[in-house]
């Protein structure tokens, strides 16, 4: 059920990429970004040693990248080891979108992370989701790098 939704979203976005042709083809790595997904560590904090607290997204997307899935698997392993911990997934968007749409997008991103954690055995009872849209950027700059840092889902300990 969850998986089918991930797939459905995946298809939706894949379709959009086809339609725009250029979107998927030119993913080059430049400094701290791959395509327009942030790959740096400036803003990343750690839930435990080796367990990054956040994952990053491409513009307008909520699909998890390979690196994001790896981060979330580490988070899942940590959560399985610390079974009393509950978390809030805080979804965020960059400033290049309308406020209300970005609230929805932040929610979709946080839920993409939640769905993935659940497929790695973390119960939904331990996860709540909170979208901030574009209200809480980590980087106040208005440039592609700043925006890439702000398109994120952050896992925060809730207890």
């Amino acid at each position: 059920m969850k998986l089918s939704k991930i797939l459905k979203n995946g298809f939706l976005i894949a379709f959009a990429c086809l339609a725009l042709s250029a979107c998927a083809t030119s993913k080059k790595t430049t400094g701290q970004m791959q395509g327009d997904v942030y790959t740096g560590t400036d803003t990343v904090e750690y839930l435990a040693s080796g367990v990054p607290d956040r994952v990053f997204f491409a513009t307008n997307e909520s699909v998890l990248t390979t690196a994001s899935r790896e981060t979330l698997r580490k988070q899942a392993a940590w959560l399985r080891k610390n079974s009393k911990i509950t978390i809030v997934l805080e979804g965020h968007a960059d400033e290049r979108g309308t406020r209300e749409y970005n609230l929805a997008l932040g929610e979709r991103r946080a839920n993409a992370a939640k769905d993935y954690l659940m497929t790695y055995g973390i119960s939904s009872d331990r996860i709540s989701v909170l979208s901030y849209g574009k209200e809480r950027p980590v980087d106040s700059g208005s440039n592609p790098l700043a925006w890439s840092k702000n398109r994120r889902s952050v896992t925060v300990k809730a207890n």
Partner: protein
Amino acid sequence: MKNFLITLIIILIPFKSFGLIEVDITRGNLNPLPVAVSPLSINEESRKNFENILKKKNIGSEISSIVENNLKISGLFNPLNKDAFLQEPDIANLKPRFEDWNLIKAQALITGKVSYVEEKLRVEFRLWDVLAGKEMMALAFTTVPNNWRRVGHIITDKVYERLTGERGYFDTRIIYVAEEGPKTQRVKKLAIMDQDGANNKFLTLGNELVLTPRFNPTSQLVTYLSYFRNLPRVYLLDIETGTQEVVGDFPGMTFAPRFSPDGKKIIMSFAKDGNSEIYTMDLENRIVEKITNHPSIDTSPSYSPDGKFISFNSDRSGYQQIYVMKSDGSNVKRISFGKGIYGTPVWSPRGDLIAFTKLHKGKFYIGVMRTDGSGERLLTENFYQEAPSWSPNGRVLIFYRETKTDSRGEGFSAKLWSIDLTGYNERQVPTPTDGSDPSWSSLLSN
């Protein structure tokens, strides 16, 4: 609310208007009509009484200044400099010497008188066509002295109506989000002010994030999004009493609220499990209805003024676009097909247009299109701006814009701006702090 009521006591029917001045507001007005606003005359006794109550030296001049400022910001009128006026206010109000006013190129003249009668403020005013040498309108009303600013707005509304043939929009208020602090930890409060920026009042303390306040078109209620206790939910606030209640307490996030045109329902988005759908809630019986059903993001709903249709934005095509559907959720049609992404559709109170925010090639635009998506017209372009809200007569849009505050393109400032539907007369609306998400009230007096 009681003391806001203003009783119209005398309405002298104006002369038939054939051949008198008219102002065309359907086009950009590059030659605003020269108008002389003679200070309202006041006798010494009334002046002293008002000075005691209101701490204003000459309430007649104060009210005239409000009228003058309103006329100026409308962009349709050019209030003339008072220093050039030859006739004393009291005599002008009885019988203007039209040749004197003609000499300073005034085409319209506003005169009047304010007096203190049984602890109330009584005002009478007249609008004169200088070229025709005729009175166009004469009105009088009485209110509590504290309403003196509203008296100025009501006079402007009547003058605007008489000269343009359209309802005015001056006796109105704006609710918005007052902002302070760095972008990463912005403090946001609900605030309300008169349309001209006066009487600013903060309605929340800034302890929790608040967004997107919207006026009920029929009452003093406001709906908005609050992050109270970190639970983003749609709230209802009564401006008169200050009471707040949560209305969208669903197990997920509720956001993007607006009232139906009759004020009886709230339409909003509800996000759960990564999917945002549009719902309505009846405020009387609290019955909730789901309107959209699609795995995409459906948000920013806005009713047509007859309540029969809803415009909203959805990314079901891959990117944010504007759609229109019947108010039961049937007949969904995409209406935006231009280049770029489209959001925040808001239906004009006149019913014929939808205002929107558009993002294309890194620029934000405020624009309008017909309700079938044809006739797209972009009114203003900037680095970042969004969230148009219509004046109650559908002639002016208010929105907010963020600008960079230093040359390196860093730092930022968010301000409210207004622009005429014609694309002319763009101006900043004064606010004591930064501001965003403005919503225009209906006319307070009808």
